[in-house]
């Protein structure tokens, strides 16, 4: 009986974490651009703005 309670608790907690992460990623807009996400990984250089010490002369 106790072991069932423990198992239930553990499995529900794990699943709830999964649900939480999914809802978080949904709110963070991770599903808004699935095509873009698929091709972004092909470019290793980080295209997001950096501190302005990046040297332009390349």
């Amino acid at each position, binding site marked *: *009986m106790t072991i069932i309670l423990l198992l*239930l608790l553990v*499995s*529900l907690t794990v699943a709830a974490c*999964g*649900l939480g992460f999914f809802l978080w990623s949904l709110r963070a807009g991770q599903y808004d651009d699935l095509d*873009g996400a*698929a*091709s972004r990984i*092909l470019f290793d250089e980080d295209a997001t703005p950096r501190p302005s010490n990046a040297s332009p002369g390349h």
Partner: protein
Amino acid sequence: MSASLTIPLAATALVCAHCGLPAPHGRQFCCPGCAAAHDIIEGLGLGRYYQQRLLVAGTRALRPDAGERWDLARHIVATPDGAKALTLAVDGVQCGACVWLIESVLAREPSVLVGRVNMTTRRLRLVWSGAPEDADRLVGRIEALGYRLVPFDVSALAATQDRTGRMLMRCLAVAGFAAGNVMLISIGIWAGQGGVIDPIGPATLALLHWVSALIAMPAIAYAGRPFFASALAALRQRRTNMDVPISLGVLLVTGMSLVETINGGAHTYFDSAVTLLFFLLVGRVLDHRARGQARATAEQLLALRATDVAVVQPDGTLRRCGQEQVAEGEHVLVATGERIGVDGVLERGSGMLDTSLVTGESLPTKAEPGTTVYAGTLNLGATLTVRATATGAATLLAECVRLIEAAETRRGRFVVLADRVARRYAPTVHLCALLTFLGWYFGAGVPAGQALLTASAVLIITCPCALALAVPAVQVIATGRLFRGGMLLKSATALERLASVDTVVFDKTGTLTEPLLALMDDPDPADLHLAATLAASSRHPLARSLVAAAGVVVPAEGVVEYPGQGLVLATASGEIRLGSRAFCGRPDNPATGPEMWLARPGRTTVRFGFDERVRADAKETIGRLRAMGLTLKLISGDRPEQVRRIADTLRIDHWQAECSPVDKVSLVESLRSAGHNVLMVGDGMNDSPALAAASVSASPATAADVSQTVADLVFQGTKLQPVPIALRTARQAQAVMRQNLALSIGYNIVMVPLAIAGWVTPWLAAAAMSSSSLLVMANSLRLHRGTTR
């Protein structure tokens, strides 16, 4: 500007190293703009772009084009933390490399906080700190690379769509969570009850049931909202839809299971209830996503075509602003090759106007000061000044919108197949459950509780999971298939309406014929090629048609354009001129139609005549539609001789010319009242009321804004072929929908007697429900194999 940077050898071939269009022999670039763009990219150390990109045929080439200037200021939104934000539609994004290039260029601007391209929606979100005026410079940076950026205000409808989509996703997540966990517990219970493991004691069973209830009930309350809301809305209007039996089933099952749990009974059906919701939500989310994508693309098409209007200020300067911001009496400047942005009266300037998108007239008409002109008309002559007249209810557009609204009211509501089935299905199954209860209670004399339990089992088995998936599953796949073929299905019910079409009514100008005038005569190839090298540097519609007719053309350098007159190229042997009759020094006898002349030193002048031309595949398409057993009709606002010529070419027997928008509506409505299901295909503003009146409507992507908004289906590209493809796909989809409905009703016929007999246990219910849903989905997937030809 020279490009002295290192360029891969392969790029020195016949195409421009930047945009991929043909370049002059021995040159790396087709034009100075491309050379400059290449310099910028190499200068920023982003040359990798050229190796990693994939040029997609059919998308806009990356040739910088300093055509338009936007009044960006009115689209800028201030963010809460004091920065400025702007959303722009991007034209020319071909692959991930373009996204990377745009973002990398913006990342090198110190003031830019966010510069992110959404590749799915092709939109750029730009957030920067500093002055709002900085927007022009930042946008200019990207435009210099060859992309076209158009300010894009997210519509209220799109925002609601987005919210609904996220809400459905959250519901799906919660339902998935609950379904997984409740099923996990249920399998334990079934194993115990079925003797697979040691029997479960009553205390453990009660615990497991309570845990299931605690997971399932909040989840159902949360994830069931889309269904409950829709069912309530239908009931309030005294209608019924598929969501009514779903909601009723889910709620009854849950309530009954709760009672069982409290009473310490052996069977609960929480697992069935949440799994049902989960499956249904999968269908809803996919459906929403597929149509959302089609709608977003349609919006994007419209946004990319929007133009700003140049208003002449009292002090003579120009102010660029949106069409809706032009006040009555203000003067608007319309350059050659531009579309007039407002309804008004021509004040200064005269010339030929192409009104095909407004009135359906195929040949340009002459306009003089005092002529009334409509928004959407293309200026083929020199620069015009138009005095804006009432922008309110008196315009042609407002008249069309009124007709559209009237037609839509008369059209009535279309009841989708699923709801037609639900109308009969819901009362039948509920009666069945009632009879089961009465039969067991009075007939067999069992206790009320047990009779109720058996009756509930009937409700669970008949809960229309497969039935509710039968239609959306097919629609998702069909909509996706059409989307990949460049056909944007905007309406949820359009697919079903398309399937029953028996009459197709075509507009002529811009629908059966190409949207722009085409070169008619068969000129000497050498002359045509020479003319095209000049024409390539002009944005004039006739010049563009000339270039299109010539095929691969390398623009000549040093061409000077005299707006509204023509083009001049100075060569060693003298001037080459391309343009109007007068410009090329021909005697001034009247023109016999839209034309261009080519004058060269020491050679006779050559005339290029233009006329409307049927789309390349129109004949084949019409033949195919006829072979599908459809009645074809042609209605046009154009002159009878033009309409007859096209009708004869395409062998369409029923045609009608000189139709006003009202005539078109009444023709479509008389066909409908005679019992025909009419597909209207049209592009002009004058077609829009008829589009709204038809059973279902389609517009090419070149259509007037109002027509495109009204149409259920928007097709891209230069071909007419999408019309039969869409019709055939809809018919196939309808067939699969019917199969699905038959499958799920067949499942009910097998399972309901078992439920009435009281033999259905929770595991059997869950297994039957899931397998029937999966069967229906698998059957729908067969549509995927269909060809898109």
